[in-house]
């Protein structure tokens, strides 16, 4: 019967202990009784009890004090007080200190039965809630943020720091570095994690549509608005609003957004009703916002509102040490998703993967692995399974010395610019004379035409 709900009866009167124990045993509960507070505390050391029925008046430590001590051992304990002489004061005190309920002897059996059933239901809901919260935490920990490089350790530290606050965060990094994953990690570790994170891709929506998407609209606000629609701001209430590609927002929406961030209230498009919202803003961009501000295409006041705490995600080429781990992670991910028995990457293929400079960052790496998983044959991914561009010489950085890398990079830029020296020098951010010197040093020759 030990899997059944458990009840501990604490009363100094033997007859009460016996009759209650017997009554609950017939219901199939696991019941035990204690004749004093000390005995009850001893029993609490041994196991958890779902419900504790406590007598208030007992010699020595009384029920009230016992409740405090029980809460120290198990803060979630469900306590019901049973007493022969109820007073309003003691009842109020007991409930204030966290008791589930308070009943006077003799108790109506129907009432007692319902009371215990309700207490158990509430306890089960509480436990279920805890379990679900744990599952959410587990789920959020299992995010796709992979990498043990020092650069990523810094990013993790920043996530930990900023998660504990409600500060606006700006995530910066090249396209494909995983800015949304970082935003989700911040949200998942914050106090708002049980509320939604609502992502808006500001770059993907034209002017007008973005406004309606963010603020929602009233019926008839514009042609085609047949129904009232909640915007992302309303949906993010209590949680986090993630504004991706924030640098692409038009000037009018920038102004509206600034007002919402400052006042936490807005009206739907075509409406007058003021809606109050509470959300945290996390935004991301791969644009040079400072330049956009100086050029006048991004509001300076909004920039300062958003740019409170910055998390910079390094491009993949700057944390090459993470590439094998990431590549293997994606192999496992797609192996499970596709049900394909490819479990590893051959050393040659891994070498190619690591040497490639990954301009599309983690997203490009993931796509490359997904493709290799499709075309490859179990059990390993071979170099020929990788996308063509990985094996192109101009994208593969040579292993070895810095000079070798410099040489390869110069060749690459020169070829891209058809050996236009001025343009290549400009891209390489060196003067033309230096470029000529390096061409001579590395013995580079312009390929003959035809």
């Amino acid at each position, binding site marked *: 019967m030990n899997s059944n709900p458990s009840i501990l009866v604490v009363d100094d009167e033997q007859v009460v202990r016996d*009759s209650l124990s017997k*009554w609950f045993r017939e219901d*199939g509960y696991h019941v035990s009784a204690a004749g004093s507070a000390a005995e009850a505390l001893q029993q609490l050391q041994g196991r958890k009890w779902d419900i504790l029925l406590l007598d208030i008046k007992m010699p020595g430590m009384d029920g009230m004090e016992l409740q405090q001590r029980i809460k120290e051992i198990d803060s979630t304990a469900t306590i019901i007080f049973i007493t022969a002489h109820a007073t309003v004061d003691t009842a109020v005190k007991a409930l204030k200190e966290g008791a589930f309920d308070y009943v006077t002897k003799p108790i109506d*059996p129907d009432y007692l039965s319902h009371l215990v059933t309700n207490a158990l239901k509430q306890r089960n809901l509480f436990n279920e809630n805890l379990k679900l919260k744990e599952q959410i935490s587990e789920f959020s920990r299992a995010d796709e943020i992979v990498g043990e490089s020092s650069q990523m350790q810094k990013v993790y530290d920043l996530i930990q720091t900023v998660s504990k606050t409600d500060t606006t965060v700006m995530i910066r990094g090249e396209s494909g570095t995983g800015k949304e994953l970082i935003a989700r990690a911040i949200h998942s570790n914050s106090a708002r994690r049980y509320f939604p994170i609502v992502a808006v891709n500001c770059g993907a929506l034209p002017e007008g549509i973005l406004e309606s998407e963010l603020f929602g609209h009233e019926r008839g606000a514009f042609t085609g608005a047949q129904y009232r629609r909640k915007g992302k701001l309303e949906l993010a209430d209590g949680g986090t609003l993630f504004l991706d590609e924030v640098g692409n927002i038009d000037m009018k929406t920038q102004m509206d957004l600034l007002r919402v961030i400052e006042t936490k209230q807005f009206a739907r498009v075509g409406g007058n009703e003021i809606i109050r919202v509470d959300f945290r803003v996390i935004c991301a961009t791969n644009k040079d916002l400072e330049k956009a501000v100086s050029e006048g295409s991004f509001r300076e006041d909004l920039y300062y509102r958003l740019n409170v705490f910055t998390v910079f995600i390094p491009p993949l080429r700057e944390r090459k040490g993470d590439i094998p781990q990431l590549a293997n992670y994606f192999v496992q991910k797609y192996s499970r998703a596709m049900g394909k028995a490819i479990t590893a990457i051959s050393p040659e293929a891994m070498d190619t993967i690591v040497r490639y400079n990954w301009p599309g960052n983690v997203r490009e790496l993931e796509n490359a692995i997904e493709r290799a998983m499709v075309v490859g044959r179990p059990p390993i991914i071979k170099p020929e399974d990788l996308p063509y561009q990985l094996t192109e010489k101009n994208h593969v950085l040579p292993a070895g010395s810095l000079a070798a890398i410099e040489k390869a990079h110069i060749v690459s830029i020169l070829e891209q610019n058809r050996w236009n020296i001025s343009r290549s020098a400009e891209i390489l951010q060196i003067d033309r004379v230096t470029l000529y010197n390096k061409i001579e040093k590395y013995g580079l020759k312009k390929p003959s035409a035809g």
Partner: protein
Amino acid sequence: MASAINILNASKLEDERLGELSQVVGQVFGLRTYVTPALLNLDRAFDASRGQYNSTALLVQLLNQYGQSDDKRIAVVAVDLFIPVLTFVFGEAQLKGPAAVVSTVRLSNPFYGLPRDEDLSLRRLEKEVVHELGHTFGLYHCHQFECVMRSSTYVEELDLKRLSPCPDCNGQLKGLMLNK
């Protein structure tokens, strides 16, 4: 294993009604069931402060007076029963023990200000006797709505139950009766 059920009558039920009760209970448990007068000292179980009779004290008397018999015994009394912590009980049984007691007081309509209905009272009594005897065989309360082993703290709940245990409880009962 108990070979018979002894209904100990300390109520005002007529012989005919007791005969019906005995027959029905015997059918449910598949055991010989017989009625004898109860030799109980009700006064010793009386609690003057509550004006009720302590059912546990009556159970103790049943155990002491009929200690030699292997039969399950259930006393039917016409006094209001209680256990110290509760306002009343319809009956009380020893879980996996030989004795039980039920009261007819709260099973009759006039107790609730309603017109007398002897048939209904008897049906309630039959269910309550079967329920308490179920406990003596080792059955716990059941969550099946119509099972006789469902806990009833309200007289109308008794009316909703069937007289017999649900298939699950019946299976358990068979096992418990064989293992005893």
